[in-house]
């Protein structure tokens, strides 16, 4: 069965299915119950599954994640939410020092099976700490897995997949894409491991994730007007990175532009660039290009458009690579 859903509704549907099919699953966080979440992603879940399984927690992110750790130790499969990316920072002690390490500490006896939902990245003109791109911070922590869907179909299936995985998964939802609709094929998830070629092309590969996938697809369409054929790869899994998949595309096109919203220095673009250099040394037609946010705090208001890679900035990156 295929249905047209927004990303927000696709995630809502996945959560509903998980809660229905897995009695050990719980959804909790600030305002996720009665209100249905600030983005309405958890709308209706509390009415349906009860306030004991869909819990409005006190305003305390460390508490939310610490509670998740305790629940996981007891064999439950929690799906906590931090309301905004920037609110993951107060929970970092629990995420890094506890959740990421408890499996290791207990030599595998108490796995931390959980999915932390993080509405992520910018694009909605929100105030400070409501538009952060923290994927590299999280991917740097041993013991965590990181995934970021780019459309409703991916959001639905990757969330269900993440819930089945026995390790803690950081699920980064592109909040600027919550309202965009797309087909969700419930029966046919497609391959959920690794990266995904979102558009095939010959001349150059753009690697992106989250909200930057849709923008990169727009760029590829515009590039076609200039007779430049761009392949867009949706990285999806940021930890572990799909090394073979990313390398395969760039091996074909010979050129790569990596696009992310996060600041440039020590961002995942550097990691992927290093990977491509290591694996494709001598076969690249041009140095790997990066089009990223700047090394500044995510700015407020209209400056957001200056910070987040725009169509033009990505096109500039593509042109730099083409004319090298």
């Amino acid at each position, binding site marked *: 069965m295929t249905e047209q859903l927004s990303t927000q509704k696709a995630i809502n549907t996945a959560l*509903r299915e998980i809660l*229905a099919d897995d*009695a050990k699953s719980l959804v909790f966080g600030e305002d996720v119950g009665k209100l249905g979440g600030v983005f309405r992603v958890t709308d209706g879940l509390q*009415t*349906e*599954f*009860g*306030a*004991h399984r869909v819990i409005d927690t006190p305003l305390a992110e460390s508490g939310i994640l610490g509670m998740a750790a305790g629940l996981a130790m007891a064999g439950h499969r929690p799906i906590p939410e931090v309301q905004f990316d920037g609110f993951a920072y107060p929970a970092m002690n629990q995420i890094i020092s506890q959740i990421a390490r408890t499996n290791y500490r207990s030599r595998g006896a108490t796995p931390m099976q959980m999915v932390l939902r993080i509405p992520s990245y910018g694009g909605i003109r929100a105030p400070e700490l409501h538009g952060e791109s923290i994927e590299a911070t999280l991917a740097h922590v041993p013991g965590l897995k990181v995934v970021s869907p780019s459309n409703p179909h991916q959001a639905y299936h990757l969330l269900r997949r993440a819930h089945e995985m026995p390790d803690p998964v950081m699920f980064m939802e592109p909040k600027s894409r919550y309202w965009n609709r797309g087909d969700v094929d419930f029966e046919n998830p497609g391959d959920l491991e690794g990266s995904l070629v979102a558009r095939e092309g010959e001349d150059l590969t753009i690697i992106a994730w989250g909200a930057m996938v849709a923008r990169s697809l727009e760029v590829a369409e515009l590039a076609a007007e200039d007779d430049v054929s761009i392949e867009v790869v949706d990285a999806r899994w940021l930890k572990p990175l799909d090394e073979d998949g990313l390398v395969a595309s760039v091996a074909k096109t010979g050129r790569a532009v990596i696009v992310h919203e996060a600041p440039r220095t020590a961002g995942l673009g550097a990691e992927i660039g290093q990977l491509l250099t290591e694996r494709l040394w001598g076969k690249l037609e041009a140095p790997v290009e990066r089009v990223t946010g700047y090394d500044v705090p995510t700015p407020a208001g209209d400056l957001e458009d200056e910070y987040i890679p725009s169509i033009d900035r990505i096109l500039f990156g593509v042109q730099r690579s083409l004319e090298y």
Partner: protein
Amino acid sequence: MLRVRSADGTRIALHEVGASDGPRVLMLHGFASSSQSNWVDAGWGRAFEEAGLRGIAMDLRGHGDSDKPRGENAYEVERFKEDVDAALEFIDAVPGEKIGCLGYSMGARLAYRYVGEEPGVFAALALGGLPAGEPFEDIDRQMADAALRGEVEPTGGTEFVVQLAKMLPEADPTTLLDLAFGVARTPFDPSVHPPVSPTLFMTGDKDDRADDTETMVPLLDDARFEPIPGRNHINAITSRKFKAGVIEFLQSHLG
């Protein structure tokens, strides 16, 4: 919502409706309906919440969020009773706990049959829109299938079944036909094992599908009938009189 597995593996959906604490009531909806449509959309959640009753609404197999197996065999009356078994196993009543049951139309018939053979499971039975006879009489599967394909104009009992099966656009009419024909293999006879639990019958006074509910009252030891004024089989479910009658009855027997 949670899904439990019935004896044959079919997943049966259970929805919490009403208060999160208080006496528990198993709720069984009618044919071609669902817990959502029969109870939630009709406002029973709020009514139960205010009354301090804790409803557990079961989607009958072939309906709502429950699995929809194919073939008439999957819809024998026995299968439905096993579904109620599975729901009761989930409810896992503590000794001495009084559980109620509220059914509408086909759900009421299922409750009637279940309690008839399992006396004592429910402390009180509220049955809405229940006709005294077998509703699916004189039905012909071949004619029904042909009618679904638009090849013939169905007649008699078959016309009624086909009309119901096609009524909900979101439901699969073939599944509902399997269900109607499967259930009809065991015709309903209210004089066989009538319930011994206190029973309240309520039916709309304009309900032409169940205009004989009251004739069942003498078959039971402890039963009474109350009409739902101004309502028919379809629109009785939202009636405040219906809700008030059921709630007062359940409270008095479960408290």
